Structures are given as C-alpha cells and as structure tokens.
C-alpha cells in the first residue's frame, strides 16, 4: 500500500510542479498545495485512470490532506 502513497504523491508533484518535501501526507490540498476546483478535477481523473477506480462526486475534496486521499484510494482498492 506504500506504493499507492508514492504514486499519489508522484501524481501531485508532477501535476502541481512541486517538490517531494512540499507534498507530504499532512499537506492540505487547498491551504498548502493551493489546489483549486479545476485542479481537483484533474486529480480525480488522474486517480481514476491510474488505479482503475471510480471516484464519486464529493468523495475527495480540497479540504482533505494528501493522507486522506491516499486512504480513500486504498479503501477503494480493498473493496
């Protein structure tokens, strides 16, 4: 499952042009990574493609931290 964490961090670093030390599990998507609603759409689509999962509206939001997103994806992969 660490692989999931690394993949998600990698997606965020690439998409947001950020360094590993900025994209921590504790980083809040809105307050720390400054992600807006369109960047959230990009993230959702990227997660769906990467992990072959379906993310429904509201399951992740930019109020979440990176760790919350990792957990959401991990839970979906277990189902």
């Amino acid at each position, binding site marked *: 499952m660490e692989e999931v964490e690394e993949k998600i961090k990698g997606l965020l670093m690439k998409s947001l042009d950020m360094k590993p030390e900025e994209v921590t599990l504790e980083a809040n998507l809105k307050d720390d990574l400054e992600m807006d609603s369109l*960047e959230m759409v990009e993230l959702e689509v990227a997660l769906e493609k990467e992990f072959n999962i379906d993310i429904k509206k509201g399951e992740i939001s930019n109020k979440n931290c990176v760790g919350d997103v990792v957990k959401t994806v991990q839970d979906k992969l277990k189902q």
Partner: protein
Amino acid sequence: MKKVALTGIGIVAPPGIGKEGFWQSIKQGKSFISPITRFDASLYPSQVAGQVEDLDTSYLSFRLLKKIDKFSVMALVATEHALKDALIDLDKEDPYNIGVFLGNALGGWLYAETELRDLYVEGREGVSPYLASAWFPAAPQGQISIYYGMKGYSKTVVADKASALMAIGYAAQVVGNKKLGIALAGGTEAPVTPYALLCCSTEGSLSKGPYRPFDKERDGFVVGEGAGLVVLEEMESARKRGATVYGLITGYATCCDGTHRITPDPNGKGLAKAIKTALDMAGYQPSDIDYICADGTGTKLGDVSETKAIKEVFGSYAQKIPVSSPKSMFGHLLGASNAVDVIVTLLAMQEGIVPPTINYQTEDPECDLDYVPNNSRPKEIDRALILARGRGGINAVLAIERS
C-alpha cells in the same frame, strides 16, 4: 480629451520579442512571414503566417503553463516587458489603481482545438478541466490580473481587428477620467491554429502571400500571432517615477459603417467620420498629422475604402502624409494588431523613422497615397494617427503625439 502618457512597451511579435529587437527588425523592412510548420496547412489556401517561436517562458511555472493558451502566455510575457520598461514596482502601487484592458478577436484556439479533438475521440473525460478557463477571450486579462495582482477597473474588448485599439482608447478614457492611475492596454492573438486559420480562410480574405496592402496585385492579408501592451498613465505619475514617456494619447474615436456583416463601407464614410472625430478631440488640423499607421487589410475593398476615407478628411494634403502598413512585414495580428501599430508608431516617433509597407510593387490607380513602399524613411513625426477596422464595419482611430 485629457492627454494620457504612454510609458511602457511590451511586445511579443514575429519580428522580435522586446522593443529593441522588434524595432531593429521593423526598420530593416524585412518579411517575417514564413510557411506554417505548427500543423499541416497543405489543404489551406493560405499556408504562411507570422509566427512567434522561441518564446522564453522559463520564469513561468509548468503548473500555470499547462492551464493557459498561447494567447495568454504571450500577453503575460508582453506585460512583463511593459511593466519593466515603465519602471513600475508593483509592491509600491495600490492594486486597485491598476487595470488591464485587452483586445482579442478569436480566443485561445490552440488549447481549445486539442481538447475538442479529445472530446470527440476520448469522450468527456478526455477533456482537460482547464479548457474552461483557457480558451475564452477574457482569459488573458484574468491571467495578467492574477499573476501580477492587478485588481482595478479592467475590460476585454472583442471587436475583430479593431479590438486592441478599442482597448487602448477605452483605457485612455478611464485613465483620463481618473478612474484609474495606471492602465495596461493592448491586445493578444494566436490565430495560427487549424480552426482559427480555417475561419479566416472561409471569409475569403486570406492571402497566399506575400502580404501586399495597397498594391494592385494584392490578394488579402496574412495572419500573424503575438501580443502588444502599453502602459497608460497621467503625465505627473510618469514624471514622478522617472519613466520614459514615448508619447501622449490625445484623441480616440470609434463608429460603425452599418452596411455589411463582413465588408466595410466601399466609400470609407464611417472611417472618415472616426478620423475627423479623433482629430477634433485632439484639437488637430489635418495638416498637423505627420504619419498615418493604416489598417491595410490587403483586400481591394479594404484598401480602396481606407484610401478614400483618408482623402476625404485630408483633401490634397493626403498626398503629403506617409501612410504605411508595417504589418505587411509580419502579418495581421487581428485582435492584437493595433497594439503593435501603436508600438510601431511610438518607436517611429522616438527615432524619426517612418516604417514601410513592404512587398509593394504595382501601383493601383485607386490607391494613390504615399504608402512608404518597401523601405523605411527618415522623418520627424510629432503627431500621428492609427487606423483600425474590424469586420462588420467597425472603425476606430487613435491620435497620438510626441511628448
């Protein structure tokens, strides 16, 4: 009209990026139109354009660049140049005292076309979410406002080939009326894309090249891409900062022909009216004008009616005024073209050199003015007019003078 100072120049155009390189190229009277390489244009009647390559965007983040179209990128780079040239330190300015006024005719099609293709090939999920904020004509205004934190009275003008002159004229009025201390005004356009070029082609006004306005063998205009921005402010604020004042806006007028959805009034009556109104506003006599930067659409109707309008206002003096269309060198930048015309005219004033109309070979008896054929020419310019015309009979005229 209260005179408004022009204090900063930002230019991204086929002849050069930044005013020095741009002006050196313009003076030489060379062509900067080349075969289109960005996509396969072999099925288009016009396969040449003025193209901006090698734009240095290294100071902009990938996170930003992936969200915006080329027309926003060029506008951002031009803004950077204009602010530096005007010695503006944004940390010392009230953000609500600075506004952005941009002209654009087409929107961001380089971005939009790719995403539309993805929509039809991959379905809805293949489309970038950033398309929503990348393509529309006011996007560059928003991006400049966000990037530089400029929050004052602002406006995007969409008026075909007259867009940028209208944006500059509008900004001059806003600054003149003291609604704003500093305005960044101009235009941006990126028409070298398959769909944008197709739209220009179907109108039937595109040239196979060369672009030769006022020449009897003309066959239309060639598109070009780029952005031009100037800084407008009151004379006092420019002096306080020690900024170079390139010139003053002294008059602006606009009116409509009301004749046809594409073509201008064949007699140029509307353009003549706009010229007269701008001269009156500036307090000039026709004989005060030393140079006219013409639209020079390169269509018979466009060139002849523009010539008629100038002759109607200036009478016999029309023969004595150099009237040129520098865009013959790099293409018609549509909604950004007049911003480049204003910049060319300011630099021409500064150096006392009239830029030429290139590719001029065959005289047209119906176009009998001095179009400054092929070579630039030394001449002191104290007062000048810039003429703009958009499809559907839009006319706009700006009067400027040396400070």
